[in-house]
C-alpha cells in the first residue's frame, strides 16, 4: 500500500514514450487504461463500475490531440478526474426540507456504519440552522443502542423519543410522530437498527416504517471503507426502500473511499454528507470533486486551498510564492507560514490533503509540541538572525538554545531542516514555473505559497 504512486505519476510514466506524438491511438491509451483500472480497484471502486468507467474514459481519450506543452498522461488524468467528478454528481446536494413541517429523515444501513452517531451529527447541524429536531430511537435490537442515542441527544442537546426495546419500531416511529407534533419539533430523525440488506424480515420492517412515516429523506449510511460489496448493499437498500441520499462515514480514515463512486453509480442518488470524525460537529457536505481527487490519490487540494484562503490573504500568498521562487525564504517567513498553518487546523489533516503526500503521510507523525519548540527557537533569534540565517554561528546557536530552553542539538537540527526546506522550496519554485506554462483550462490547482514548506516539524516514525 505504501507504494502507491499517484495515478498522475503512473500515467505520466505510461505515456513517457509518447512525447511528440500528434494524436493518441487506441493502443497508446490501453496502457493508461490499465493504470486507471488498477488505481480505481485499489481504491475499492466496484469492479463492474470500474469496467464501465474505464470504457467511457477510453472513448474520450482516443483521438485526443496531444498538445506540445501538455503531457498526455496529465491529460488523461484530467479526463478521468472530470468524468469521476461528473459521475459523483456535480454540485453537492442539499437535504430535502419539507415545505410543511415536520421534515422526516430516516437513517438506515448495515451494522456499524455509524447511523446513531450520524443521527446526532445531523440533528446538531439542523439545530444550528434554526430547526427543532427530534431523534427517534427505533433500534430495539442492538444492546444499549437506545441509551447510546439518548446520550448523544444530551450531547447535542436535542430531545430523543424512545419507548424502550420491547415495542416494535413501527409503534415507536408512530409515537415519535405524535410526540413531534405535540411538542412542535419540525424535523424528525429516525435512527433504525443496523441490518443486513439480505435480511428479508428486517428489510420488511424498514418498508413498514417507510409506509407509516412517508419520509422526505431516506439516507443510507455507508462506511467509506467498504469494499466491493458496497454495490450489493446499496442496490438492495435502494431497491427495497428507494433511498434519497447517502451519508458516507469514517472518511477521516485513510481509505481512498472508492465505495462513494460505487454507491452513487448503482443508486443514482447523491452523497449528501460525509462523516469526518468522532466529534458531533464532524459532518461536512459532500464535494464530488474532492472525492474524485481522493480516489485518484491526488490529495484534497481544493479543501486545502479553501482552508488556506481563510488564513492567508492573497497578497501575502503571492509575496510568499515570489520569495519561494527566488529562494529568499528566511526564518520570518518560516514562522509566518507555520503560524498560518497552525490556525488552519491539525497539521496532520492538512498534509494529507497535499497531492502525492496522501499515501506517504500514513507513516508520518507530526508532533505539534515540536512545532511549539521550533517557534520558541525562532523567537529566540534576533530579527537580524531571522532574516539572515547565514550569520547564525555556533555561539549564536548556544544563545538561541538557552533562550528557547531547548538543547543545542535541536537548534542544530532546526538549522539543518531549514536549509533543506529552502532547497526543496527552490525546487518547488522551478516546478511551479513549469506548471504555469502547462496549466491551461481546468487543470490542477496550485497551492498558494504552501507547497510543502514544512519538511521541518515532522519525521518518519
Amino acid at each position: 500500500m505504501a507504494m502507491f504512486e499517484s495515478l498522475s505519476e503512473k500515467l505520466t510514466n505510461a505515456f513517457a514514450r509518447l512525447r511528440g506524438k500528434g494524436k493518441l491511438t487506441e493502443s497508446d491509451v490501453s496502457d493508461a487504461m490499465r493504470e486507471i483500472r488498477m488505481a480505481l480497484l485499489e481504491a475499492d471502486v466496484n469492479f463492474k463500475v470500474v469496467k464501465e468507467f474505464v470504457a467511457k474514459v477510453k472513448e474520450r481519450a482516443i483521438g485526443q490531440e496531444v498538445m506540445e506543452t501538455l503531457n498526455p498522461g496529465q491529460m488523461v488524468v484530467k479526463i478521468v478526474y472530470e468524468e469521476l467528478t461528473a459521475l459523483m454528481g456535480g454540485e453537492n446536494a442539499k437535504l430535502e426540507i419539507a415545505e410543511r413541517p415536520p421534515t422526516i429523515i430516516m437513517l438506515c444501513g448495515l451494522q456499524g456504519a455509524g447511523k446513531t452517531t450520524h443521527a446526532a451529527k445531523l440533528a446538531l447541524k439542523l439545530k444550528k440552522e434554526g430547526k427543532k429536531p427530534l431523534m427517534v430511537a427505533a433500534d430495539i435490537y442492538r444492546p444499549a443502542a437506545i441509551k447510546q442515542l439518548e446520550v448523544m441527544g444530551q450531547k447535542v442537546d436535542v430531545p430523543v423519543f424512545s419507548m424502550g426495546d420491547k415495542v416494535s419500531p413501527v409503534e415507536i416511529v408512530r409515537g415519535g410522530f405524535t410526540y413531534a407534533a405535540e411538542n412542535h419539533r419540525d424535523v424528525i430523525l429516525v435512527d433504525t437498527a443496523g441490518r443486513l440488506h439480505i435480511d428479508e424480515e428486517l428489510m420488511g420492517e424498514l418498508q413498514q416504517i417507510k409506509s407509516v412515516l412517508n419520509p422526505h429523506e431516506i439516507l443510507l449510511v455507508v462506511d467509506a471503507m467498504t469494499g466491493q460489496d458496497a454495490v450489493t448493499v446499496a442496490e438492495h437498500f435502494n431497491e427495497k426502500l428507494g433511498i434519497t441520499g447517502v451519508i458516507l462515514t469514517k472518511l477521516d480514515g485513510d481509505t481512498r473511499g472508492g465505495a462513494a463512486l460505487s454507491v452513487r453509480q448503482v443508486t443514482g442518488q447523491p452523497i449528501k454528507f460525509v462523516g469526518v470524525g468522532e466529534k458531533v460537529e464532524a459532518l461536512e457536505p459532500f464535494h464530488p470533486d474532492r472525492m474524485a481527487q481522493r480516489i485518484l490519490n491526488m490529495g484534497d487540494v481544493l479543501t486545502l486551498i479553501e482552508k488556506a484562503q481563510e488564513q492567508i490573504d492573497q497578497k501575502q500568498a503571492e509575496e510568499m510564492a515570489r520569495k519561494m521562487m527566488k529562494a529568499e525564504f528566511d526564518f520570518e517567513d518560516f514562522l509566518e507560514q507555520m503560524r498560518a498553518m497552525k490556525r488552519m487546523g491539525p497539521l496532520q489533516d492538512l498534509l494529507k490533503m497535499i497531492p502525492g503526500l496522501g499515501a506517504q503521510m500514513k507513516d508520518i507523525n507530526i508532533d505539534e509540541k515540536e512545532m511549539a519548540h521550533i517557534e520558541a527557537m525562532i523567537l529566540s533569534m534576533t530579527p537580524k538572525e531571522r532574516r539572515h540565517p547565514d550569520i547564525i554561528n555556533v555561539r549564536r546557536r548556544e544563545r538561541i538554545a538557552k533562550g528557547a530552553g531547548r538543547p543545542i542539538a535541536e537548534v542544530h537540527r532546526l538549522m539543518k531542516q531549514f536549509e533543506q526546506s529552502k532547497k526543496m522550496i527552490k525546487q518547488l519554485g522551478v516546478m511551479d514555473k513549469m506548471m504555469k506554462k502547462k496549466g491551461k483550462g481546468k487543470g490542477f490547482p496550485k497551492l498558494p505559497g504552501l507547497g510543502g514548506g514544512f519538511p521541518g516539524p515532522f519525521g518518519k516514525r
Partner: protein
Amino acid sequence: MGFFDRLKEGLAKTKAALVDKVTSIMTVFRKIDEELFEELEEALIQGDVGVETSMKLVESLRKEVRARGLKNGEELLPVMKELVADMLGSEVEPLMMAPSGPTVILVVGVNGVGKTTTIGKLAHHLKEDRGLSVMLAAADTFRAAAIDQLMVWGERAGVPVVAQGEGADPAAVAFDGVKAAREQGYDVLLIDTAGRLHNKVNLMEELRKIKRVIQKEVPEAPHETLLVLDATTGQNAVQQTKLFKEVAGVTAIALTKLDGTAKGGVVVAVCDQESVPVKYIGVGERIDDLQPFDPTAFVDALFATGKV
C-alpha cells in the same frame, strides 16, 4: 450439525458471491489460456482479495500450471485452493493461553466492526465450549453507552464485567480488569477498547498506554491482541492491520459480518501482506455465531462447487 456444515451455512452467502463466480468460470470446459487466468483474477478482485494479492495468486497459479503441466481448465480449482490456503496459513491456530494466571486478550479495531459483539460471543464460546472462566473489562469509555452494551453481553454470556464510568481512563479500567481477573482466579480476561481509526495517532498511542499499564500487573500480557476486521471492508483492512500491528502488536484477527454478501476476501491479502492469522469468524448476531477459523475449511467452503 457438524462444524463444517455450520461453517458452510455461515459462509453460504459469502460463497454465493465469491465462489459462484469462481466456480462458474471453472466449470466451463475449456483450455487453460490467458483469458481464463484473467477471469480468475477478476473474480478474486471482486471478492476483495485486492489487485496486488490477486495478481500474485494468479502468477503462482501460472507457475504451478507450468510445473505440473496442466491443460484442463477444471484442474485449476484445486490448485487455486491450495494457493489460497497456503496464504491463509494452512493450520488451525488456537488462542494463545497463559501458562499460569489469567490469559489477557486485548480486543482492538476501527469503529463499527463489531468489537463488543465479538467479545460477547467469544466470552460465550470460551465459557461454554472450552469450560473456561471469563471476565470482561469495559475499556471503551469513549463511545456513548458502549459500557452498557458490554454489560448486556456479559449478562447474556453469564460472565462478570469490570467497568468504570464513561470518560474514565481506559488504561485504568484495563488495569482494574487484569488485577481483578488475577486476584479472583479467572482463566481469561477480554478487554474491550474503543473503536479508533488507525491513522489517529493520539488514539493509537492510547492503545500503547493500555498495553503498558496492564503489563505492570501481568508482564507478559496481553497474550493475544485480537484485531476485529469487518468482512465488508475493502483494501483498507490491510492498512488497518499494518498500523494496529505496529502499535498494539496484533497477534490474531477476528473477521466479522461474514453472514452478509461481503466476501471477506481481504483477509487473504491481510495474511499475505501482514502475516497475522485469522482465528475467529463472526457469522451472525446470535451469541453462538462466532466460530474458530479453520483455513482449510474456509477455503473449501469458499471454493466449494455446487449449490449450498
